């Protein structure tokens, strides 16, 4: 067997990210050497991004089924049942590398891509979320990246008319060379009208719809899986440009087509465009595929089959139609002024055959492309365990008000209004709570009903770095807690697992640890994983990002009138904390901002306790006993109280018992888990305490609402006006330094 086809060298194979063993498998499977087109196709299909070759072995640990799960991982997005014949379809995805290279377009096309994953399945997208991680605020590139990413997310989401209702933003030097841009889309569909990539049969026409194919993003998929180095600038021309106007038309046209019964299978063209979409549908249908490359709508002249198969031009979909129904698609897509063309048909050969200009340019079996993609059991070792750190081990500060001010105006805690003001949060007129509102999760009404979706994204990379297993548990638990704090029943999650180079054992250790922690939390909280995405090789010059398994949680509020936020606290309300406060300080915001340290173990998450406390709080919300409810996380009780005070425009008098075994700074700033801060009228507070006793839930009175400041034992005052100015002022202060021209 000749080793290489004409014009191909060992060097070219290597450039395609295919190693020696992998190349040997290709030779064996084909019984000959692959040509350039075939090599390109194997290269993208076997890239980390498409094949999950390093991660598949561990993703299986997630619980993925449950009473409400209609479709778990494996399709374009996860599907859950929200009753009354309705389904919620959602997924989260990363666009990290493209966003670092070209922040506006990288982030914009990230939003476009995740929207397509959701409407491909028949859902009308109803909400977008974004989880962002940037480098240190004072790093040279940070403000430029923040500005571009935020403008790109807004530019795309605002134009397609899907509200961006929430998200999270962290700053840490660990992301200086590798920012994270994770976007989540949520849609609604009828359970009897959901579309899948599976379902095609031989002899059906393959219809291409959307934008024309250009030379955009060729090798984007392999790029997303390659480590960054100083030469990355040269890879720049591969970044794609998005057209949200076309996406908007594509959404409407696809939903119109889906209302007919003409579709056999449908798949968006994401990473590796035409290649992955056609291979996936062929593989899932167990069939073959024949494409005539001459028929592919092309934006540029002289495109090769290689370029067309690897192009990542945006806003394109592939539809396999029932025979004879092509006209239905033509009529609809012409009306929306989109390209539409029959470019091939399904076959019973089990092979992928491409013809171009009268020649067969590719003829390979489908199965090895998908099923037999390499799968690695990469070696790993867990990071060394760190000891817990308690407030008792840390010097007590003098003025608690000053500390609180400093924490609330620190990068991770300060208001992100500068960001979310650039997002249309209200389009579609169903947003009941978004970033601006005092709600632990965004709330989006199910159109025309009194039901609502609660949506959150969460992850605390500090904890994951300190202890991947506890950090993974915590990310899921916090998402569950955020949904619970609004009164929602948490249902399921999607995730976006962002890590460094899996070929390094300690990174693989982080990856495995986080997954195992998340899996346990999902299991105990009955909060299965229904979709997700893995982004590896987030490193620059050998330095990896902090492990960041972002979690996107979705829950259901059965009745919009029974929900809670943290903005309704009133003068005279009693403040209660659900859960035990021990003063856990390891990897806390306090430690980082006040002590300048990032050591110590992550706070421990006891999942049974988590569930007990959450269920208790949800019950109290539904009983209508709370004026405000907030989960406690970063910055502990004091920061949670500060959020509540600012949102309610009412001061809080906190009371720390002097004889307590927990020192005052531990009481105020400790990040013990499974806790909520509640505000209630006196009579309700008494009832809550009685219920708590009966249900064996620890609930402690911690203060009283009133005044214009936050105080502790009547001292350490921090005036709300001063707090608000600092909290709101940090991010504008940072971004005002940016020098940038208009687009």
């Amino acid at each position: 067997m000749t080793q290489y086809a004409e014009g191909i060298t060992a060097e070219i194979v290597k450039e395609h990210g295919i190693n020696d063993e992998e190349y040997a498998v290709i030779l064996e499977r084909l019984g000959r050497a692959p040509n350039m087109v075939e090599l390109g196709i194997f290269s993208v299909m076997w890239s980390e991004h498409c094949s999950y070759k390093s991660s598949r072995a561990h993703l299986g640990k997630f619980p993925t089924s449950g009473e409400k799960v209609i479709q778990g991982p494996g399709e374009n997005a996860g599907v859950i049942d929200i009753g009354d014949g309705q389904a919620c379809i959602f997924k989260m995805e990363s666009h990290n590398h493209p966003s670092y290279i070209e922040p506006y377009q990288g982030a914009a096309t990230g939003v476009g891509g995740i929207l397509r994953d959701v409407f491909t399945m028949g859902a009308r997208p109803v909400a977008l979320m974004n989880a962002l991680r940037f480098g240190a605020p004072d790093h040279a590139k940070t403000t430029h990246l923040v500005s571009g990413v935020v403008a790109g997310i807004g530019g795309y989401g605002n134009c397609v008319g899907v509200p961006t209702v929430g998200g999270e933003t962290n700053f840490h030097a660990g992301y200086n060379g590798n920012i994270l841009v994770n976007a989540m889309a949520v849609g609604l569909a009828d359970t009897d009208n959901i579309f899948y990539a599976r379902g095609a049969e031989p002899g059906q026409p393959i219809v291409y719809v959307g934008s024309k194919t250009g030379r955009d993003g060729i090798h984007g998929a392999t790029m997303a899986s390659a480590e960054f180095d100083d030469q990355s600038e040269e890879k720049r021309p591969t970044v794609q440009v998005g057209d949200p106007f076309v996406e908007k038309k594509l959404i409407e046209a696809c939903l119109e087509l889906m209302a007919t019964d003409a579709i056999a299978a449908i798949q968006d063209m994401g990473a590796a465009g035409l290649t992955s979409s056609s291979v996936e549908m062929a593989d899932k249908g167990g069939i073959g595929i024949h494409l005539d490359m001459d028929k592919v709508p092309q934006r540029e002249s002289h495109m090769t089959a290689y370029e067309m198969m690897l192009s990542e031009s945006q806003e394109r979909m592939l539809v396999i139609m029932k025979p004879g129904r092509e006209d239905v698609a033509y009529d609809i897509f012409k009306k929306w002024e989109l390209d539409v063309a029959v470019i091939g048909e399904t076959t019973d050969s089990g092979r992928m055959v491409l013809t171009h200009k009268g020649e067969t340019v590719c003829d390979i079996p489908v199965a090895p492309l998908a099923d037999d993609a390499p799968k690695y059991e990469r070696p790993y070792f867990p990071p060394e365990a760190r000891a817990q750190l308690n407030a008792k081990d840390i010097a007590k500060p003098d003025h608690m008000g000053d500390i609180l001010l400093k924490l609330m105006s620190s990068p991770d805690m300060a208001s992100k209004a500068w960001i979310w003001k650039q997002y249309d949060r209200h389009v579609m007129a169903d947003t009941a709570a978004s970033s601006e509102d005092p709600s632990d999760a965004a709330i989006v009404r199910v159109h025309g009903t009194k039901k609502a979706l609660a949506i959150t994204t969460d992850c605390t990379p500090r904890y994951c770095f300190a202890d991947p297993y506890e950090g993974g548990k915590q990310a899921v638990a916090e998402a569950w807690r955020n949904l619970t704090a609004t009164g929602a029943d948490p249902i399921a999650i999607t995730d976006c697992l962002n890590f460094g180079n899996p070929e390094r054992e300690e990174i693989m250790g982080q990856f495995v640890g986080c997954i195992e922690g998340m899996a346990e939390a999902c299991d105990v909280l009955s909060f299965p994983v229904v979709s997700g995405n893995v982004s590896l090789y987030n490193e620059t010059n050998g330095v990896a990002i902090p492990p960041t398994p972002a979690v996107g949680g979705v829950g259901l509020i059965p009745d919009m009138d029974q929900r809670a936020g943290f903005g309704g606290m009133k003068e005279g309300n009693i403040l209660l904390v659900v859960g035990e406060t021990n003063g856990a300080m390891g990897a806390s915001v306090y430690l980082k901002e006040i002590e300048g340290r990032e050591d110590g173990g992550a706070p421990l998450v006891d999942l049974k306790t988590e569930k007990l406390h959450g269920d208790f709080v949800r019950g109290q919300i539904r009983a209508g006993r709370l004026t405000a409810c907030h989960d406690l996380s970063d910055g502990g009780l004091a920061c949670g109280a500060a959020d509540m005070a600012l949102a309610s425009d009412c001061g809080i008098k906190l009371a720390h018992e002097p004889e307590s075994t927990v020192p005052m700074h531990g009481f105020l700033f400790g990040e013990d888990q499974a806790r909520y801060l509640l505000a209630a009228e006196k009579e309700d507070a008494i009832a809550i305490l009685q219920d708590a006793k009966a249900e064996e839930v620890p609930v402690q009175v911690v203060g009283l609402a009133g005044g214009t400041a936050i105080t502790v034992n009547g001292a350490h005052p921090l005036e709300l006006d001063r707090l608000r100015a600092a909290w709101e002022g940090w991010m504008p202060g940072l971004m005002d330094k940016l020098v940038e021209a208009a687009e």
Partner: protein
Amino acid sequence: MKAKIHVYLKPGVLDPQGAAVAGALHNMGYDEVTAARQGKLIELDLTGDDADTARKRVDEMCSKLLSNPVIESYSIELE
């Protein structure tokens, strides 16, 4: 002195604006238009009268601020 800077998308980069303009002109019956592209024109008023220095400085402004080298090219005219 005046500098006129033309910033345009690199060849091959998708130009959604241009495509939409071409589409609209077609809908209005201007069938002779086969393609449209849209770029930016930035005019700067400059003090000083050394053309060489000005060109060098404006070139710097273009690469640092006025154009996005990932997707755009530019040309400079001095008057």
